[in-house]
Structures are given as C-alpha cells and as structure tokens.
C-alpha cells in the first residue's frame, strides 16, 4: 500500500548519468546557451543531492515556465518550427523537470523523456556509432529504473548494471522480430524535417574558391554500388549534380533560382516535370546502381549522366538534374539507371541558346574576349575551337592547386593570362566564358568526380574532396557534350583521382579527421578504414534502409503471395516463438524438489499407515494440525505422534544447515517412534 515514494540516492546518480548521456548528442546541435542551462540544471540537481541547495521555489518554477515559453516563441521566429527548435525545447523542459523531481513518479517522466530524446538523436544520425551509443544509453536508463526499484539498503551497482545488460540482451530477440515483421506504416501526416543544420556538399552557386573549400574536407558525400559489378572507369565517374548556366562575372548560378525558399518544393525547382524522353537519344543498355547519399540539407541528388530515377520519387529538371521533394536531411538511398551513351537536346531552342550564350555586358575581361575571337577565327569548327582552348590550358603553364592566388577585378583575364593557378572551378568558369565569348552555348556542371573503391563490400565511396566542376558544350548535331578543362591541366586528377593529383598540396583534406593518417597512406590503417566503412555501408543497406518496400520484398520471399492474414500470422508466430524462448530463459522453473529422506518417511510411511486406519491427512493440513487431529481421535497414538511431528517439523522446516549425521540419527529416532505407534495401532 504505502511503498516508499522517495528517490533512492543511488538511483539519482543513475538518472543523472542517463540524462547527461542522452543530452550529449543533442548539445552538438542545440544552441550553446541551452547546453549551458542543461549543465547548470544537472549541477543544481547534484547540489540538491548533496544538500547544498534546495528545490526550486514556486516563484522560480513559474519563472522557468515563462522562460521556456519565451524561448520557444523566439526559437520559432528565428529558425522556424522545426526539428531543431523542438529538440531544444525538449531538452529545456527535460532538464527543468530534472531539478524539480522529488518522487518516483517524476523520475518516470524523466525516464520517458530520456527515451524520447534518444529517438530525436536518431532523427539526426542513424550511423553504427550513433546506434551503439543509444544502445548504451538504453542500458543505463534501464539501470536507472532498476536501481530506482531496489531496496535503499542494497548498494550493488555492479549487480544493477549486470541486470540492465542482461535485460537489454534478453529484449533483443523480440526487438529484432518486431523490427523485421511488424508492418511499417506510411507516414500519417507529412512532417518535413526542417533543420537549420548547415548545408554540405556542392551548392547551387559557384564562385572561385567554393569547390576548393570542399577539397579540404575528407567527409563522405555518398556511397554507390553498381549492379552486376558493372563499374565504369574512374575517368567516367562524373557524378552530375547541378547545371549552372547564369554568369554575372563572378558567380555561376542556376537560372531562376533566385529565391532559395522555393527549395521546399521540388516541382518548382525542376521547373516542370516535362516529358523529357522526347529530348534524348539513348544508345545501349543502361547501368543500374544504388546511391546512399549523406544528408546535405539540399534538395538535389547525384548520379551519372543521363540518369533516370527507378522509383519515380525524384523530379527530372530540364537540364537533367534530379531533385528530391524536400531537403535531404537524412541518409537517403535511391536507385538510378544511367545511359552513358546519350545525346540530349540535339535541337536547341532559342530560349536555351540565349540562356547559355549570354555574358554580362560590363564584366571587363577584354583580353579574354579578344583571345577567344582570335582563336575561333583560326579554326574551322566549334569542336576544333574547344580542342584549341583545351590545348591552350595544357600547353600554357597552368597549375592545379587548392590555394590559388587571389584574382583581381577582371577575374577571367587575371586567371587566364596572369596567375594561371586554380582549382577546377577556375578552369570550368573560364572555359565556359571562352565558349560563350564566341557564341557557343556552354554551361558549368557541378558535382563530384571519382570515387574510392571499397573491396570489402564491393561499393564506392565518394568524398567531399571529390567535388568537381566541369563543362557541357552544345555542338551542332551532337547536343550537349561534356568537356573537362581540368583534365587538360591535371590529367591524373581525372584518371587517378584527386588524392593522387593533390597528394603534395598541404591544403588537401586538411579539415578532415585523421587526414594526416589518410594522407600517410599506411596500408593497415587504410584497410581498417575501408573495413569500418563497409560495416557502416551494410548497416545502412540492411537496417537503416529497411522501409515498407524492403519489408514487402522480405514478406514476398517468406510468404510468396503477401496477404494481410499471412503477415499477421507471421508476426504473431515469430513474436510468440521469440517470447517463448526468452520467457523460458528468464523464468526459472525449479525442478520438483527432491524428496528428502525425512519428508519421504513422513509422507510415504507415516501418513500412509495412518490412512489405513482412516486418518487421512487433508490437503493443506499442516503437520501440527494433523497431529492434533490424530491425538484427538486416537489418544493412544498421541505420545509417539507428537514426538514424530516435533522431529519432522524440526528437520523439515528448521535450520537448513543441520548436518547429515544429525539428520540420520534423528530419522532413526523417528522410525523407532513409528514402530511404537504401529504397535499401538
């Protein structure tokens, strides 16, 4: 009835550890001042615990509520109603509850919030490391619940953690069954995860220096697996992202992408979902591949030209870019097929020609324009002109570097005739400029080039330093053709990869973790890195990516034709098997206790004998009650019966540690008494 509602002190320590553990991953994302408040609350709680501070007063609590309301309003105004503001609010409410909790009931509120915050962590990252961390959190929270329910007199923390681990391990089989079999439901209502996390990867603007910035990052951009091992050559791996066709003298942009707020809607971005098949000629068989893209906070995805989405979830734009409906805020897996021999827009519309040949009127760069016109007049065709420009890059002293000199006002002129050092964006930009200067339609394409092959799971890894910019030039009768001026300057960049091309550049991958180690190219470390990434990749493919569609395929494999009844039966069947297995390991059934000689004698000899004379021991009748009844009905038996009963109780219910020898002598005594009793009968 009145179970102590106070919080045991050891339990409080457990709770505090769980709180710190679940808030820690959040603190990377929420504003710093919220983390500081959270830390303050934990410290306050510790001070309450040690008796140095008191619980918050009523006034204080009202103040805290008002403060939280104010914070939530300002958060919504600043970063919008989204995951981040919700996460910060959750953390605030959570730590305030922490200082206020007094009773076990309050602790369970905190524990429930711990689980919900763990779930919030999964919204941000579902990597192997994040999963292992949350698993550790769950064990600690379980430990908190256990220590909350143990006696205050027992301080056995190692026992608590052991039990918590045991419980979690026992819970695992059932969890796996539910995970695999429990029908996944499509979202009940659309919740876009709008996160103010900074965008990563190539952006929809390209100014000099933008892509070389990515060259400093060793972060993963995406992983690709080709079906049937049909991997193209390294030099063919142009992961097309966006097409930039608007140039203002400094920066290349997508046309009509002035309002970045429209990125929420893919249809708006992709202009219109036109019947694009009419504008392409394809040849040969497509290659099929799967891409797992890391979150970019941008709406576009990457693929080999000319890519078609197999699931019809993505929108094709008029420049054959692919857009997701909403930002990519989580790791996303998609299947594409690409026709590598293709022709697009063999007939170019006037509007398209205007767009891809226009240059700003007042951008200067007179020297470049003159150079272009001279060069064009010296060759016969557009294609020859392209080769002449590439040859110029190859033959003049151009340098491929991540740290080029700064450019003056006439950027193109300065680069082409003065500094002559730059990263791919400099080459792509000036190449397109030289094309447009003589009226050849051209545009800049940004994306990634190259990949690292992981032999352990047979897939490729594309890093941020693979970011690249190249060009597409429209040629009469051929449509848009890809040219890469960087390859003219640094052929090894395209053939061997950026690692080889920039191996001596100190800026390469300088921001990456272990970059020094990776540049050192130590074999076993490299192997380990690839192995770890392979684990991560498999985890993504098999666990993180396990959605309705994959589940349906699994059901089809198991059940053949999938019906609701079959799914239900499979769920119930597997769940009960798992439950039965776990149940039998958890619940310890004692074997029927072996009959002690004393017990055997009492029940099988004495009671049997007495039954013969009509004195049967009633079920549940204690030995004393039975003895009393026997003595009452057959007073002549009272003496030995009382003696036997006394010995029996003493041996059977008394101290368990009585020595075997004593038991034997006592039993002998009982037997001789029984002989007396028998003669009386």
């Amino acid at each position, binding site marked *: *009835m*009145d*179970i102590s509602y106070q919080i045991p002190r050891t339990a409080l320590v457990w709770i505090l550890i769980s709180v710190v553990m679940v808030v820690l991953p959040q603190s990377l994302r929420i504003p710093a001042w919220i983390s500081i408040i959270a830390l303050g609350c934990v410290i306050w709680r510790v001070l309450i615990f040690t008796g140095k501070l008191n619980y918050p007063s009523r006034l204080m609590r009202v103040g805290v509520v008002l403060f939280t309301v104010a914070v939530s309003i300002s958060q919504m105004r600043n970063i919008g109603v989204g995951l981040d503001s919700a996460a910060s609010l959750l953390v605030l409410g959570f730590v305030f509850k922490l200082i206020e909790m007094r009773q*076990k*009931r309050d602790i*369970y*509120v905190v*524990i*429930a*919030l711990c*689980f*919900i915050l*763990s*779930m919030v962590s*999964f*919204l941000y990252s*579902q990597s192997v490391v994040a*999963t292992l961390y*949350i698993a550790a959190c*769950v064990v600690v929270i379980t430990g908190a*619940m*256990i220590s*909350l*329910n*143990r*006696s205050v*007199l027992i301080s056995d923390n190692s026992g608590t953690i052991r*039990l918590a681990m045991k*419980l*979690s391990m*026992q*819970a*695992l089989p*059932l*969890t796996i069954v*539910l*995970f695999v079999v*429990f029908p*996944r*439901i499509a*979202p*009940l*209502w659309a*919740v876009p*995860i709008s996160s103010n996390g900074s965008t990563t990867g190539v952006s929809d603007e390209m100014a000099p220096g933008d892509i070389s910035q990515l060259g400093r990052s060793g972060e993963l951009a995406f992983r690709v697996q080709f079906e049937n091992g049909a991997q193209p050559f390294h030099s063919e791996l142009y992961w097309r992202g966006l097409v930039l066709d608007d140039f203002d003298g400094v920066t290349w942009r997508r046309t009509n992408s002035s309002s970045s707020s429209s990125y929420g809607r893919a249809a708006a971005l992709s202009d219109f979902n036109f019947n694009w098949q009419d504008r392409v000629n394809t040849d040969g068989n497509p290659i099929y591949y799967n891409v797992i893209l890391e979150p970019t906070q941008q709406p576009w995805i990457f693929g080999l030209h000319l890519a078609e989405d197999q699931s019809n979830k993505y929108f094709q734009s008029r420049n054959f870019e692919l857009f997701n409906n909403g930002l990519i805020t989580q790791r996303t897996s998609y299947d594409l097929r690409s026709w590598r021999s293709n022709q697009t827009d063999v007939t170019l519309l006037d509007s398209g020609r205007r767009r891809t040949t226009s240059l700003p009127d007042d951008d200067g760069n007179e020297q470049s324009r003159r150079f272009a016109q001279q060069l064009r007049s010296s060759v016969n065709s557009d294609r020859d002109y392209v080769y002449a420009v590439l040859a110029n890059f190859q033959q003049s002293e151009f340098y491929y570097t991540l740290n080029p000199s700064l450019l003056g006002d006439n950027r193109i002129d300065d680069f082409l005739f003065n500094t002559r050092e730059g990263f791919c964006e400099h080459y792509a930009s000036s190449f397109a400029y030289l094309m447009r200067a003589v009226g050849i339609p051209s545009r800049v394409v940004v994306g990634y080039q190259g990949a690292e092959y992981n032999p352990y799971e047979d897939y490729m890894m594309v890093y941020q330093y693979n970011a690249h910019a190249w060009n597409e030039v429209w040629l009469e009768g051929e449509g848009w053709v890809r040219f890469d001026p960087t390859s003219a300057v640094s052929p090894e960049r395209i053939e061997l990869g950026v690692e080889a091309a920039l191996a001596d550049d100190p800026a390469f991958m300088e921001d990456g973790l272990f970059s020094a180690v990776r540049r050192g190219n130590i074999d076993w470390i490299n192997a380990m890195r690839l192995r770890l990434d392979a684990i991560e990749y498999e985890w993504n493919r098999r*666990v*993180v990516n*396990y*959605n309705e569609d994959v589940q349906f395929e699994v059901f089809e494999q198991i059940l053949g034709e999938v019906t609701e009844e079959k799914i239900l039966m499979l769920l119930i069947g597997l769940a009960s098997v798992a*439950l039965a297995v*776990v*149940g039998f390991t*958890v*619940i*310890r059934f*004692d074997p029927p206790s072996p009959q002690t000689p004393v017990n055997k004698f009492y029940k099988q000899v004495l009671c049997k004998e007495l039954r013969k004379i009509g004195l049967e021991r009633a079920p*549940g009748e*204690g030995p004393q009650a039975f003895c009393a009844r026997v003595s009452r009905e057959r007073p002549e038996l009272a003496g030995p019966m009382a003696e036997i009963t006394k010995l029996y109780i003493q041996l059977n*219910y008394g101290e*368990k540690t009585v020595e075997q020898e004593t038991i034997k002598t006592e039993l002998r005594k009982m037997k001789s008494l029984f002989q007396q009793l028998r003669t009386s009968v």
Partner: protein
Amino acid sequence: MALDLGARWDKKFQQWMASRIPPRESVTLDRKIIYIIPSSNGLMFVVAAGLVFIAAINYAVSLAFGLAFLMVSIFILAILHCFNNLNQLTFTGLASRAVFAGEQATFRVKITRSPTRKHEALHLNFPGENSSHADLFINDQVEVDVFAAASKRGYFKAPLLKTTTYYPLGLCRAWSVLDLNLRCLVYPKPIPFVMSQFNIGSGGTDDSAIIKEGSEDFYGLRDYVPGDSMRQVAWKNVARGQGMQVKQFVDYVDNKVWLDWDMFYGFNTEERLSRLCYCILKLSKQDKPFGMKIPGSEIPPDTGPEHKKKLLRTLALFGVE
C-alpha cells in the same frame, strides 16, 4: 454513496478472495497465485513507446522503429522478471505475540527462497495497513514483521496477507494474496481505573498471610552473607561467639487481593474487561499476589508473568468461542 458502494465492493472482493485462498501455514508462490498488472509508471512508459513509434512512422526513421520495439520488448521482459521476483518464494507464518486491543498486532512471516535465486524489494502488508519491506539478497530466508491494527479482543485472525513487488523496472506490479493462518491473541484494551475504590485487603498476621522481606517486624536470624547491611548484623550474637548473623525483618502482606467482576458495578462487559485488564497490569507491577473472579472462571492469587498471562488470556477469551 459511491464511496459506500466502493467499500461494499471491496468487502465483497475480499470475501471472494478469501474464499479462493485456502488457509495454509506455508505457501510457495507459483503462477496460479501470482497476479501482474502494469503500474501507472508502466503505462507512462508504454505511452512514451507509442510516441517514439509515431515519430518513427512520421519521420520514417528506421532505428526509431527499432527503439520503439526495444521499449516494448523491455516492457515485456519487465513483466517476466517481475513475476520471477515472486515465483517460488515460500511463505511460512510464525507464532505471534499477544497485544492489547487498539495496538498494532505483529505477525511474523518467514520467507524462504531456493538458494539459486535472488528476490528483492518485496513489500508485505495487510489491506489498508503500512507495508513491511523484505529482501532475500544475501540470506536464504528472512523473517518479516507485518503489522495490522488489532481492534477487538479475542483471537485476531490476520486479514489476507498481500505481497507486492515492482522490481526490477517498476513498470508493472506483481502481487500475491495469501492466508497463512496467522492468529494473534488480543487482550482487552486497558482503561485506567482508580484502584483505591476497592479493597486491597487489611493488614494482619493471620494464617493466610504471606511473608515478604521488609523492614517492619523482626522475624529471625540468618547467616551473614557478604553485602548485608552492617546495621542489621546481630552484634550481640557475634559478641557471644555465635558467628556473624543478621537480623531479618519482614512485612506481613494480605494476599487476599481479588479482582472481582462485581467490583465494576455499572459498566458493561467490555468496559469491565478493560478495567480488569488495567488492574491486572497495575497489580502485577507491584508484585503482590492477586486473583480474579469473573463469571465462568476463578483464578487463585499468584504472582509472576505466567500468572499475568493466564489472567489476561482469560479476559481476552471471555465469552469468545
């Protein structure tokens, strides 16, 4: 009205439970008599799992599904472990000490486990009473005192003993209700009574007088024992060469102290018993012999704790089958 109905239902339920549970001195808990329901904290936990699940659906986060399922599995395991914490425990009722009506009756229960198991955080209580706590963590058996208010004199049969546990996670409550045939003798509640109202007998030296060591009358001589007062040494006898002897003095006490039913004229039965009880306690402290006459029994004067117990027991069971 509702409360009344609730109380009536409760009583009915208790009766139904009592009819289901045969009284036995020693009971081993098993699945037939262990009940489990989720606690309110457990319901909150399930709601939290539901929230995680809904979030998993809406954000389409695979591992959040996993977390929701893990929470459900932990909940199910909590049920199994909670059951385990009671399963195969043996409860044995032990003899209990007599109390006065209005006091807390103390019932001693022995709990035994099999050596391979540990049981923790057991709470034992009678309906509506405070609970007692027990752990079988180190020892194989413990004895626990469980309390119940004894309101009426006579044999007090303990109500149904409830053993509850929330261990290990507090998400569900497992309990079992037992009748260990616990009984306790309840004496009448003592009510103060001015003793001088009745006759404690007159001083005198008649035959029935009993001798008690005192300081009034000279009684005789006995051999000196180290520690005797020097003032009581019969120095004259020492001078006569008869050795060290001590003068003994005694008080003469009348033993004819009788507590009589009729002394409490004007009170009803229970009031008389209560006052008799008070007088017994009072007189037994003075160490004077006294007897008691009540309808149906007459107990001759005597002293000592056994005598007191006998008297109180007679009072407790007066008119009780």
